[in-house]
């Protein structure tokens, strides 16, 4: 079974530039999560999708971050414009669903973003 795929693995940009990350979850997984992991901290949930609908985006800085999951499969996370404090690893995870027994999250390798 293929795992969660993310690209790119690394990205370096200058502040005020735009950047986009891509995630392909495990086939059949209805729930998709985007996390931000700043160095030395635990992952912080940015947005959660159930199929192509948003379940929770309360911690997404909506003035600069946006995410979509068209057709309920792949997802993209965009930052526009980037700030220095956005430097972090962006993790994508997926799970079968939200019911008990389906809630194990499988993580991708992450995208390490450096904003100069």
């Amino acid at each position, binding site marked *: 079974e293929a795992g969660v795929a993310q690209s790119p693995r690394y990205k370096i940009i200058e502040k005020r530039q735009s950047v986009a990350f891509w995630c392909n979850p495990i086939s059949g997984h209805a729930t998709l999560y985007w996390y931000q992991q700043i160095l030395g*901290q635990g992952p912080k949930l940015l947005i959660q999708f159930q199929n192509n609908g948003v379940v929770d985006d309360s911690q997404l800085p909506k003035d600069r971050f946006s995410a979509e999951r068209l057709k309920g499969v792949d997802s993209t996370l965009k930052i526009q414009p980037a700030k220095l404090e956005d430097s972090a690893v962006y993790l994508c995870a997926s799970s079968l669903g939200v019911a*008990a027994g389906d809630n194990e*999250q499988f993580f991708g390798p992450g995208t390490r973003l450096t904003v100069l």
Partner: protein
Amino acid sequence: AQTVTQSQPEMSVQEAETVTLSCTYDTSENNYYLFWYKQPPSRQMILVIRQEAYKQQNATENRFSVNFQKAAKSFSLKISDSQLGDTAMYFCAFMRPNTGNQFYFGTGTSLTVIP
């Protein structure tokens, strides 16, 4: 709001010995799940063990076991017979199913297994 606290930023253990990582959490929920995730250096995060709050019995997965104290809101991870491959960041996480499986992670404990 839910909070997860890991008070040990770094720990080390001799190979083959036993180590316990601490985690406490704060919630007013009665139904929830707790997890330990492992993040090896430059590798993906993987699930180590999961505990359902309504189950009294502590979860066990081979060399990994938990001590779940619901009243004390404590969820520690014990690693027995530590191996070099156990070297990683370990994150404790809390999930409340009533809100669509929203996860809250602790700040992590960096474990080093010494040969």
